[in-house]
């Protein structure tokens, strides 16, 4: 238990009769960037709210830094910063005032507010009413609010929502910097795998309240079976020949044929076979199923 920043043990949560989270056992190692993935409505936000004790979990199912959450709410919240759904911002206050208000609540120096604004690039808009911020600016202010207490654990619920490509890259780099340089643990939720793929060290995939996969990003990669893609001139006839020779075809378009990859040797034999039968093979390469498709597969079968 000591090595996990977050651990849930068979967590169940219902809204009335509707089960939102079922037997969820998250294990988020300290210092990791944990990508919490799932389609919309999978239970990601509910889980994050449970981790913040905004929703009451059954006792002895949620542990943050090894401590049971219901009995250690304040001690745990002191070490956690969060951005949940749309950033919660007082629209009638400026960005800076929002941060100062948070500093008051946390009992920390107000000078931290300007520091945070600089960190998320909002210094120029510090005194603008935050209701007039763009979605991306609000999101960045939300991240600044989550970071102001210098928490060890950050819970970010779709932090790049509404950001432009530059903003997305900035948030991505910020997360990496926080984890690598400042040894923070970050749980970041998203419905886009591509976004998580570049930052996360660990991944959990949730659908309909159930955890379908949990492990390192490499383990996720290994799940995807490599394919052999063959670009050939007459795919119809070539496909017939390949089938005749006892291979299995998993995909075929008018330009290429996809078969499961077994070994380099096997690929060479197949190439020779095609060439000997007068086909023009323009390319033959090993292709890993990309994670996006893998993600879709995992969530579809559930």
């Amino acid at each position, binding site marked *: 238990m000591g090595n996990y920043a977050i651990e849930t043990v068979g967590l169940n949560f219902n*809204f009335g009769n509707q089960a939102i989270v079922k037997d969820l056992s998250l294990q988020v190692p300290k210092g990791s960037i944990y990508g919490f993935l799932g389609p919309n409505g999978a239970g990601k936000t509910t889980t994050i*709210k449970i981790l*913040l*004790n*905004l*929703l*009451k979990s059954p006792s002895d199912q949620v542990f943050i830094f090894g401590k049971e959450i219901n009995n250690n709410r*304040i*001690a745990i*919240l*002191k070490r*956690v910063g*969060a951005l*949940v*759904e*749309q950033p*919660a*911002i*007082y*629209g*009638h*206050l400026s960005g800076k*005032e929002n941060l*100062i*208000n948070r500093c*008051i*609540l*946390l*009992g920390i120096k107000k000078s931290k507010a300007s520091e945070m604004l600089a960190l998320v690039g909002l210094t120029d808009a510090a005194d603008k009413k935050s209701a007039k911020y763009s979605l991306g600016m609000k999101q960045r202010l939300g991240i600044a*609010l989550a970071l102001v207490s210098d928490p060890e654990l950050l819970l970010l619920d779709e932090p790049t929502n509404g950001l432009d490509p530059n903003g997305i890259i900035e948030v991505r780099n910020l997360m990496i910097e926080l984890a690598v340089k400042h040894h923070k643990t970050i749980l970041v939720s998203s419905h886009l795998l591509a976004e998580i793929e570049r930052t996360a060290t660990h991944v959990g995939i949730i659908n309909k309240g159930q955890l379908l996969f949990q492990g390192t990003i490499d383990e996720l990669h290994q799940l995807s079976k490599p394919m052999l893609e063959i670009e050939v001139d007459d795919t119809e006839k070539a496909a017939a020949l390949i089938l005749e020779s006892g291979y299995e075809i998993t995909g075929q378009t008018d330009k290429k044929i996809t078969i499961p990859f077994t070994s380099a040797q096997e690929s060479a034999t197949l190439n020779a076979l095609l060439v000997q039968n007068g086909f023009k093979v323009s390319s033959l390469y090993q292709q890993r199923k990309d994670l996006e498709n893998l993600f879709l597969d995992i969530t579809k079968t559930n």
Partner: protein
Amino acid sequence: MRSLYISLVSEFYKSKKTLAFWAAILLPLIICGLITFGFYTSSEKILNFHYPPIVLWAQYSGAALNVMGLLVMPFYVIFMAFSVNNIEHKNDTWKTLFAQPLNKLSIYAAKYLYAVGLIFISLFLFASLTYGFGHLLQVLVPQYNFNQYNPLSILTNAYTKLFLSSLGILSLQFILSLVWADFLKPMGIGFVGTIMGIITANVGWKYAYLIPYCLPTLSLRVTKVKKGVNPMDFPVFTQEIWTSLIYALILFIVGYFIVSRKSIK
């Protein structure tokens, strides 16, 4: 205690740019200002009545007190209870507020105390401005005899009663505004309650004092009756006040249980 204090400071910080905060200052300023203006411009007419100083003060302060006690006070309290909670509903900030390392009782109590504080400030200003503007009138219209009677104890007494009798409404409305994010439900219930309060208070129903919305009206009525007898000597803690305080206490506790079980969806 510290978390209650910082929650209170934060409540002030959040609301200092909102109408709710300024209403506490502007409402007494405007009402007292208008009454004073009336007494200044129609001074000749009023002087013709040759009121004794105590009656002059009664007429002058009663102008504000009657409006307040009957109608403005309940609605003002309803508005305060609404706006202190609405700042979180509107911005969807309950979730961050309760994700702070502060105990829930402090967050809730700070909001409640802040609303109580705003009402106190407002009524304190009413009393002070009535007193101050009365003496200002004396300077502007020397024929008045405001300076021949000291209304301080009556004013203090009346406004203290108004303040205490409004706490029952505040606690009830506070819960309604806490539970419902929209304006119409607490406002509608408050409106119906106030009308009901005025009617039952006026027909003199025996159990009217059990309705929180009646209490400001009732508490001032007692003040008026006793004033004829001995203005210095009417009690603050009458039945209405006790009822109000009991309501306030019970509903405050009920509100806390609602908050502590509140799940933020």
